């Protein structure tokens, strides 16, 4: 790509990331509950995956060669639904059914009601095992598709994560690309105070993963890391994406109170104004 094309790409993706944040806040506000902090922190990663890196087809959602995306941190599903609506998996107005009776957009992903999400999740710690199973399945089926799995940093306090941390390198699953949305927050406080994860990178390296650590809000870093993770060298890939919980909205950023409560309509509008101002300022 030329410099101009690259600039154009980041600009385009930046606008999409803004739109996803706005959609997530709109649906959480309408639902009157949900998790804004961990949705906003993952917005740039989701943008990179759904609008650049992943091979998928919203018009043919169950295309057998699609890359799989597993949202292990199921609490962040508003940003997944936002990405899917924006990509064209379903009409945008459906986002307002989030968490309402008879909706397929459950408060945490439900694969049976909504098969376009690859698995049900939300009971933390299980998604990486499921993604591992999918990676083994892809290999058995001689398929080239990749399995992407988004984890929360609080989530990896679950013991099952470390069972998979051990097993995925044993199975040499280089078609498995895990990403930790390391937003440093969980419902009871900052991870460092609740159950410290440090040294995070060393832990995954010690388990023999191919580890990269990036700024999870810099699109060029995210894209570069995802590109590098395409390499097949018999090891699973882990991208530790350092993020800010509530990213993009001043009064939500790194404020644990915004882990799991909905904004009022006024707060939503203020947040949307900020998000628009931020994008248009340069």
């Amino acid at each position, binding site marked *: 790509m030329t410099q101009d094309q690259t600039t154009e790409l980041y600009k385009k993706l930046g606008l999409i990331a803004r739109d996803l944040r706005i959609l997530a806040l709109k649906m959480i506000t309408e639902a009157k509950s949900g998790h804004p902090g961990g949705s906003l922190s993952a917005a740039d990663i989701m943008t990179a995956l759904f609008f650049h890196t992943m091979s998928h087809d919203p018009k043919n959602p169950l295309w057998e060669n699609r890359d799989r995306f597993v949202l292990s941190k199921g609490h962040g599903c508003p940003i997944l639904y936002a990405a899917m609506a924006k990509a064209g998996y379903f009409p945008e107005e459906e986002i307002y059914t989030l968490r309402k009776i008879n909706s397929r957009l459950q408060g945490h992903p*439900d*694969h*049976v009601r909504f098969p376009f999400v*690859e*698995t*049900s*999740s*939300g*009971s933390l*710690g*299980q*998604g*990486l*095992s*499921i*993604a*591992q*199973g*999918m*990676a*083994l*399945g*892809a290999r*058995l*089926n001689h398929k080239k598709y990749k399995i992407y799995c988004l984890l929360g940093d609080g989530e990896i306090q679950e*013991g*099952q994560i470390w*069972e*998979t941390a*051990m*097993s995925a390198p044993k*199975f040499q699953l280089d078609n498995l690309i895990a990403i930790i949305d390391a937003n440093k927050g969980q419902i009871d406080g900052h991870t460092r105070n609740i159950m410290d994860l440090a040294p995070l990178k060393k832990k995954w390296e010690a388990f023999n993963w191919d580890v990269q650590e990036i700024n999870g809000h810099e699109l060029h870093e995210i894209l570069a890391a995802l590109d590098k993770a395409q390499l097949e060298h018999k090891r699973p890939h882990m991208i530790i994406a350092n993020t800010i919980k509530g990213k993009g909205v001043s009064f939500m950023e790194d404020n644990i109170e915004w882990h799991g409560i909905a904004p009022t309509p006024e707060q939503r509008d203020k947040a949307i104004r900020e998000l628009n101002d931020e994008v248009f300022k340069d």
Partner: protein
Amino acid sequence: MTKYLKINPAAQKASRAAFGEALVHVGEKHPEVVVLDADLSVSTKSVGFAKKFPDRFFQMGIAEANMIGTAAGLALSGKTPFLCSFGCFVTGRFETIRISIAYNQVNARIIGTHAGLGIGEDGYSQMALEDIALMRSLPGMGVLQPGDPIETKKMTQYLASHHKGPVYVRLTRQNLVTLFSEDYEFEYGKGVILKEGKDIAFFATGGALYNSYAASEKLEKEGITSTVINIHTLKPIDEDLIVQVAKSHKRLLTVEDHNIIGGLGSAVSEVLSENGIGTPLLRIGVEDIYGESGTAEDLYEKYGLSTPKIYERTLQFFQS
């Protein structure tokens, strides 16, 4: 009454062993069958499949939750995973089964071996006595327990080829007497009548089935005739058969190597009460207590599942 009854007390095999052999055969016929084990493949008998199909066998180490999630991911990729461990260890990871397998409604076959008191000397910590109760509570989860080696084989074939959705299968460490002929046909959800009588009806399952049958034979010497029904599918349970039999007998028994809370006894009670049937019922099984070490035979004697003990209690119950 079943036309396949062919009791051969000399031909005995543990249901885990019959499963392991059947698994190798279904592996040949069904390339989508994959097997996972958590460092117990020699005990669960999945080892035969592991040797024959090393590319489709996944040794997960001592990490059952990861095995459950991995099996779910394989099932979501079009495979039919059989994931094997002791019944207590695998169902003990209830929350992982609940979300990864049950809520996803995937075609996973959870194999729990060494069920009940029948494990013997290892004692309570290795003894699945609450697994049926746990698995029965999950929507869409089938719960199966074969009563002889032939039924185990046919059930395994059925699960590899036909069934849609998640299933829990409970298998024994100890040998089971062969009850059925080789041409036995397994029917999911259907009770199997082994014997027909007028006075008492036994509903029995798994390791307790043959002893119930033997006790019923002994009761005939007292002039008491009984119907014996093999409940191999604990969920969905054969409600029609239970209602029909309950109405035409004077006393009902459930016999199981499991806590009487949440197992076969509960399942039959639910059917009876919902259908307004007042026929007295005695639930024979583990009476809401922990097990202990001992030979399987000694444990069955102590906890009331041996043929003489079933006979005694049934006689008392009938005369009460």
